[in-house]
């Protein structure tokens, strides 16, 4: 079980690439509906922490608990299933499948989870409308602007109604105006669905959208300032 009330909890995480430790005894936890910004300089291990929390990579030591599940004890197939159903992802760039239309991209995780195509696409259309990108539903990612593409990615992350959203530098490739719009929509929609958001960023203005900030330094996670 996770510590009282937390949805996702990591303890004593250690992960090294070669001889260099990216995480060295990192602790982290997040509650339902909470938005936590993970800050830190380049190479500090922010993305590694996110990948360990999401079960994308396995830590060398330590545990990651999600509800009753211990991610570090699960098989790859079980973690994949968890990511399909309970987690959503937004990355900096290159995340949309270039061959699929924006609508199909948003419907993709639902289809992977077994939802019928028509139902998945109908639901995807609702999310595109909610994120104000329904006019580009039939276009391919290469034919839309960076801001629109990122909002499509947010729609895709939210469409499965995940309990945790992992966002790795979601506005890194956007101008400030588009970045703020994307962050506003992401956090608003997450709070509305009581989804927790793990937000990796190095921008303080992006971190301002979070309820809590933590800093990764020397492979350890330290509490920063509580903003909310």
């Amino acid at each position: 079980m996770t510590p009282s009330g937390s949805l996702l909890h990591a303890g004593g995480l250690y992960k090294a690439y070669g001889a260099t430790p990216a995480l060295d005894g990192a602790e982290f936890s997040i509650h339902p509906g909470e938005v936590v910004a993970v800050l830190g300089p380049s190479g500090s291990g922010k993305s590694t922490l996110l990948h360990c929390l999401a079960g994308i990579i396995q830590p060398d030591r330590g545990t990651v608990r999600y509800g009753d599940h211990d991610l570090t004890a699960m098989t790859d197939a079980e973690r994949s299933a968890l990511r399909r159903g309970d987690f959503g992802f937004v990355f900096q760039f290159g995340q949309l499948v270039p061959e699929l239309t924006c609508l199909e991209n948003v419907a993709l995780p639902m289809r992977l989870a077994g939802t019928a195509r028509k139902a998945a696409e109908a639901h995807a259309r609702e999310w595109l409308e909610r994120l104000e990108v329904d006019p580009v539903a039939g276009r391919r990612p290469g034919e839309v602007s960076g801001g629109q593409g990122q909002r499509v990615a947010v729609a895709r992350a939210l469409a499965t109604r995940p309990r945790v959203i992992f966002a790795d530098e979601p506005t890194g490739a956007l101008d400030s105006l588009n970045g703020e719009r994307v962050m506003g929509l992401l956090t608003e929609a997450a709070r509305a669905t009581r989804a927790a958001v793990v937000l990796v960023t190095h921008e303080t203005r992006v971190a301002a959208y979070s309820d809590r900030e933590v800093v990764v330094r020397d492979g350890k996670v330290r509490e920063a300032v509580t903003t909310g």
Partner: protein
Amino acid sequence: MTRPPHHRPAPPHGPAVWLRDLGMGLRFAAAGGREGWTRTLLTAVGVGLGVLLLLGAASVPHLMEGRQERAMARQILNGDDPPRASERTVIAMDADTTYHDQRVFGLRLYPEGKRAPLPPGVTAYPRPGTMAVSPALRDLLASPDGALLRERLPYVITGTIADPGLVGPKELAYYLTSDVPLKTEDGFRLTHFGADAFGDQPMSPTLLMLIFIACVVLLMPVAVFIATAIRFGGDRRDRRLAALRLVGADVATTRRIAAGEALFGALCGLALGTALFLLCRTYAGSVTLWDINAFPSDVTPLPALAALIAVAVPVAALAVTLFTLRGVAIEPLGVVRGRTARRRRLWWRLPLLVGGPAILLVSGPLDPRERGVGAYPAAVGAALTLCGVTAVLPWVIEAVVGRLGRGPVAWQLAVRRLQLSGGTAARAVSGICVAVAGALALQLLVSALQSDFVTRTGQDSGRAQMTVSLPESTGAALRRAADRVATTEGVRTAHTLVGATVARSGPLRKGEKFAPGASVIVGDCAALREVAQTGACHDGDAFLATRGGLAVDAATIREVARPGGKVLLNADGDTGKPLGTPRLWTVPPGTREIAARKDPTGQTSLGILATPGALDLTRLQDPSARVLIRTDPAVPDGEEHIRNAAAALGPDASASTVRDTESDAQFASVHTGLLLGSTVTMALVAAGLLVTTVEQLRERRRLLSVLVAFGTRRSTLAWSVLWQTAVPIVLGLALAVAAGLGLGAGLLRSAGKAAYDWSAIWPLPLAAGLLVLLVTVLSLPSLWRLMRPDGLRTE
């Protein structure tokens, strides 16, 4: 802070601009970091494999020439005027044998003086009764596998045949010095070894056409593959060029820089291919393909062809890059592919495809008098058709995948990918499609020509599988020898036919210079049934086989042997007079005339047929014998036991296999070359397809990582990769089959043939399909690796 100079130097122009930009491209490619080097390595591996094959093909003329020269240098032939015995002569006798279907070259030699000529590859004759052997034969005889051959060649080895005496390094060969004088009737008296090559024997126009087509068919996939390899990493390169546009490079400059980058990959490929060629050349001797193995020194490309390859590959890299960049607008803020916006046009592609067969149909059948000339339209037609396959394939893929419906996620991912970049998919499979189309046409041609170049020997392997010939001896000795053969392990049944010549008895008649003769064959009823339709037969019977041959022979037989009359058994072969006291035999009065039939070796023997009870074979003059053998398939190495038994009977006894068909030597050699070339080309195509697939996966590394991150099953991605390869390959193979049949029809018309051998068609697409499946399976480890989360890292 320094100010920029007011007077800038004039920018370079003309060739200097080209050199500058190509040089810049080379530098970008060479200094591209790990990513750049991986791309260059993939291109170099692709181009290198192609160069390896091209250099191999360029070595074929030298290879064949070297083999033929050495084979001719050990020929034992003399002209119309054989030399007299002297210090400088040797009697040489062919002593080839076969072991486990492999030819063992052998010469039995008897030097008649100290200055007798030496056969190639040795510096002295082995001592009498000993032999010099090739290294491969030495190894075989020393190994357990050679136990049966050791029985046949039980001689002490006292020397080694060096390379000049061998066709290839793996050849089994021996020179045996006879310890008893050889008779000139059994071999040749020589003053030197070797004969002029039969190279001036003209090749038939159809065979020439076959060779031309084979060159086109085998080398086109290589060219296609090299062109594909040069385009590896094109998307990423275009993005990099866009960045150059941002800092002021014009369109022409970016294209020249791109050409320079491609040039670097091609030059690396050229170097890698040359290094691989030199490496493979070193090991050429240890590999045998289709019975061909070669000395490293034989695998030497013709200088002119090697120079052409060295120039053509880099030039092709430049040309392909500049050609492909035509449809791409590299702008400062990104890359626009003009090609995706507009549909591919069929009007210029289709004429290429149908033009090839059309040329062949219009040019009509080959004229046997026009040696070589008629083969040119065939080669041009084939090249055009195969180019047409590469041109039409992207259009077919675009047209078909555009209409494909929705399906499971894996299918959707694959189809959408194909819809967006059908050209990439077409490039990936075009090599294999060209190979299949060409091979199909070639296969149709070869199977149609086979009947012209593979002749029926008239032998019947259903009635006997081997024959042993026993040389002239006494009847008693032949009987003993035949009994030994008959009781050899592996013999199921053996029929012995002892033959001799007899003559009419009595004085010469008016006008006769010698007494007419006829052949006599003595054998039991079962043996005689193999050569004639005896009907009822009992020991003591005799027959006159007069029907089934020439009437004049029948008349002679009737004149020599009348039932109840006498024939002379010990007649001189030239004069018909008795050798010593006349030995007469009375033809049994009830002797019937019967029809001869072809024996299992295809011979028809008219003459007197007698059972041992009618004619005691010990009374025959200089008889010889043949033993017709049915082998026991249950006995392993039965044939080898029989050959050993024959060899033990003396150098003149020989065992041979009954063969229903025989191939024309030139056709067999071209056919072998074709099989060799096809094997190597298919290996290259498979390797190339694997490299192309991995390169395409690598381009999508980040996307694969993202898809896995949000929970996509690995099996879904694997199926998607399979569909992405399977859909174009199915379309490509359908096109290849159509093009191959069209080209095949044209080639058959040129060769003056009409019939299709449909059974020749299906194995090729099937093999190609299996090849693709294999390549996809082999690319899965790369897919798993590229799905790792490393691809998500952006820092």
